[in-house]
C-alpha cells in the first residue's frame, strides 16, 4: 500500500526529442492517494498506457521521478515495485490450472506452500472461481480469464497498486457490467490503490473516485466525475465527457457576457485574461427551450430513450440541446435559453470564467 507520486514526469519514445511534439508524455505531476480508485481517461494515443507502463516499471521515463510513498522507484524493475497489472487482453498461463495461475506470482517469490494455498483460496473465493481452481485455464471464457489475471495481481498481499489497462475491451457487453461491479467490490475489500486506464467514459466515471483526463500527453483535468461533468476545465474535457458532449461555440467576450452569433449570453461570472481564441461552452443538458431567447432552427431530433437530443442551427453554428419530453418538431423555429451558471468562456481551450461566489 502506498501513495503514488509522479513528479515532472516526461517521456519520449525518440532517442533525442527536440520539441514538445516529440514527447508522448509532456509533464505530468500527479499524486495518487493510498487506497484510492482512479481512472486515466483519454482518447487512444493520448499517452495513458505509456503513463501506466511507467508506473508499473515496464518503461523508464525520459525525465522525472516516480515515488511510492517516499521511496524513489524510478529505476526499479516491475517485480520489485510490488504492483499488479491487468492487460487489455487477458494474460493467462495456458498450460497451468486456474489454481496454479493464481499461485504463480507467489511461487516465483518463494512463498511457502501453506501461505500460497491460503491466499489462492481467499482470492478464488473473492473472485467466485473456487469451483474452477483445478481446471485448465486455457479453456475459460474471456471474462473468467480476465478475472484470473486480476487475481494474479491481488494474490500478493504486499501489492502497492493494481493497474488496469482497458481490461474490459474483449469482454461481452452484458458481462462488462458484472465485471465492473466485481472490480468495485474488490477495491472496497482489498483497499489497494487502483488505477484504471480507459477511453470509455462510463467505465471511468463508474469506477473511479477521481478521474484524470488526458489529451496528447498532458493532464487536462483531475477531478471527481461530478466536477468533470459540471465544470470542465478544458473544452476537451467538456466535449469528451458527456453524451452528447459540451457545445463549444465560437464567441466574443463583452464584459461579463459572451456574444455568440450576435446574441448576448449571460455567463457564470467574470472572464479572466484577454486575446486568444474564445469559445462559449455549455452542456446540451443546460440548453432549454422557451418563449424567448436565441432563435434557432431544429435540424435533427434523436430519441435516445431517456430523452431527446435536439440538433439545431443558430445562424451558421450547430449546437445540441437535450429535451426531457415534448421535443420540438423537425424544421421548426424555437428559442433557446442558456443557463447562465452553466455558461462559460474558454480561452484557447482553457476555462476563463470565474465561478461567481455563492
Amino acid at each position: 500500500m502506498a501513495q503514488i507520486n509522479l513528479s515532472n514526469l516526461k517521456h519520449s519514445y525518440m532517442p533525442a526529442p527536440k520539441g514538445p511534439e516529440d514527447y508522448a508524455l509532456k509533464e505530468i505531476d500527479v499524486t495518487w492517494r493510498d487506497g484510492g480508485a482512479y481512472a486515466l481517461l483519454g482518447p487512444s494515443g493520448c499517452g495513458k498506457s505509456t503513463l501506466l507502463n511507467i508506473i508499473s516499471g515496464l518503461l523508464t521515463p525520459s525525465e522525472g521521478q516516480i515515488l511510492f510513498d517516499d521511496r524513489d522507484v524510478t529505476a526499479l524493475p516491475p517485480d520489485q515495485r510490488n504492483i499488479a497489472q491487468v492487460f487489455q487482453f487477458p494474460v493467462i498461463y495456458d498450460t497451468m490450472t486456474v489454481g496454479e495461475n493464481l499461485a504463480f506470482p507467489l511461487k516465483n517469490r518463494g512463498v511457502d506452500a501453506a501461505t500460497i494455498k491460503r491466499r489462492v483460496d481467499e482470492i478464488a473465493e473473492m473472485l467466485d472461481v473456487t469451483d474452477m481452481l483445478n481446471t485448465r485455464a486455457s479453456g475459460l471464457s474471456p471474462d473468467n480469464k480476465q478475472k484470473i489475471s486480476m487475481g494474479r495481481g491481488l494474490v500478493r498481499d504486499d501489492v502497492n497498486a493494481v493497474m488496469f489497462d482497458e481490461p474490459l475491451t474483449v469482454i461481452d457487453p452484458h458481462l462488462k457490467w458484472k465485471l465492473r461491479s466485481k472490480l468495485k467490490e474488490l477495491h472496497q475489500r482489498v483497499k489497494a490503490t487502483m488505477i484504471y486506464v480507459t477511453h470509455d467514459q462510463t467505465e471511468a466515471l463508474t469506477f473511479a473516485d477521481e478521474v484524470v483526463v488526458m489529451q496528447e500527453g498532458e493532464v487536462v483535468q483531475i477531478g471527481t466525475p461530478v466536477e468533470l461533468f459540471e465544470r470542465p476545465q478544458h473544452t476537451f474535457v467538456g466535449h469528451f465527457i458527456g453524451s452528447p458532449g459540451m457545445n463549444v461555440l465560437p464567441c466574443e467576450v463583452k464584459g461579463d457576457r459572451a456574444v455568440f452569433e450576435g446574441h448576448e449570453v449571460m455567463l457564470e461570472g467574470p472572464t479572466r485574461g484577454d486575446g486568444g481564441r474564445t469559445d462559449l461552452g455549455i452542456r446540451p443538458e443546460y440548453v432549454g427551450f422557451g418563449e424567448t431567447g436565441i432563435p434557432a432552427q431544429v435540424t435533427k431530433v434523436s430519441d435516445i430513450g431517456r430523452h431527446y437530443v435536439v440538433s439545431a442551427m443558430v445562424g451558421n453554428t450547430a449546437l445540441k440541446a437535450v429535451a426531457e419530453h415534448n421535443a420540438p418538431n423537425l424544421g421548426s423555429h424555437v428559442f433557446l435559453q442558456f443557463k447562465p451558471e452553466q455558461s462559460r468562456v474558454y480561452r484557447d481551450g482553457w476555462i476563463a470564467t470565474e465561478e461567481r461566489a455563492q
Partner: protein
Amino acid sequence: MRTENQKAWFFVLPVLALVAFNALVPMMTVVNYSVQETFGNNQFFWEGLGWFEQILRSDRFQAALGRQFLFTFLILIIEVPLGIIVALSMPRKGFWVPVCLVLMALPMLIPWNVVGSMWNIFTLPKIGLMGYFLNDVLGINYDMTQQPLSAWITVIVMDVWHWTSLVVLLCYAGLVSIPDAYYQAAKIDGASPWSVFRYIQLPKMKTVLTIAILLRFMDSFNIYTEPFVLTGGGPGNSTTLLSIDLVKIALGQFDLGPAAAMSLIYFAITLLVSWVFYTLMTKDDAQ
C-alpha cells in the same frame, strides 16, 4: 432441420481422379510387384507375402533400418533444441529481422544434390577447406571417405546445416505471435527467464513445434539425395540409409519384388511413427 445433399461428392471427383493417377495407381503397381516374382518377358509368378518375410528377416534390411532410426534420432535431438535456441535469440523487431530471416532461409533454397556436392567438396581430406583445415591445421585425423565415424559426423552436420532453419523459422513464427503483454505480465509476476520459456514461449510454440518435428521426422527418415551425393552410402555400408539401400535393390540389382515389398514396409513405418508422434503431441489439447 438438416438437409442432406450428396452433390458435394461430385466436386471432389476431379481431385480424386488426379490423385488416383499420380499416387494410387503407381502405388498399386508397387503392391502388385511386392507379391509377385518376374524373370522378364512380362511374366509374373505369385509369391504371396514371401518377399515381405525375406526383407524383414534379412540382416541387411535390419541394419539399414537401425542406421535410419539412429540418423533420424540424432537429427531430431540436435535440430529441434538448436532451432528453438536460435529462434529465441533472433531479434523480434528492427533492421536485423529481415537479415536474419533471409540468412535462415538460404540453406533451404539450395537444391538437395547441390548441398551434397558442396559438402563433399568442402570436406574432402586433401582439397576441401574443412578437410584440409581439420587434418593439416588442427591435426585431427578426419576422412569421411574412409572412416565411418567421420562419414556419420559429416552427414549429420550437413543435415543440421541444411534443415535447422526450418525449425528456426517455424518456432520464430510461433514466438512473434506472442503479444507483449505476456512478457510484461511475466515480469510483473516475477517469473524467471526459464519460467517465461516454460510457461509462455514453449506452450505458444507447441503447435508449430509439432509441425516442425513431424516434418523433420518425415524428411530425415526419407532422406536420400544429400547422403547419396556426399558418401554414396559408404564407406562400406556405414551410411547406407533405408532409401539408399532401397534404390540399390530396386535399380542396382533390379530385384523388383523385394524392392517393392521393402518400399511398402518403409512407407508403413513412416506412416506409423508419424501417427504415433502426432497423437502423442496433440493428446493434451483434446482434454
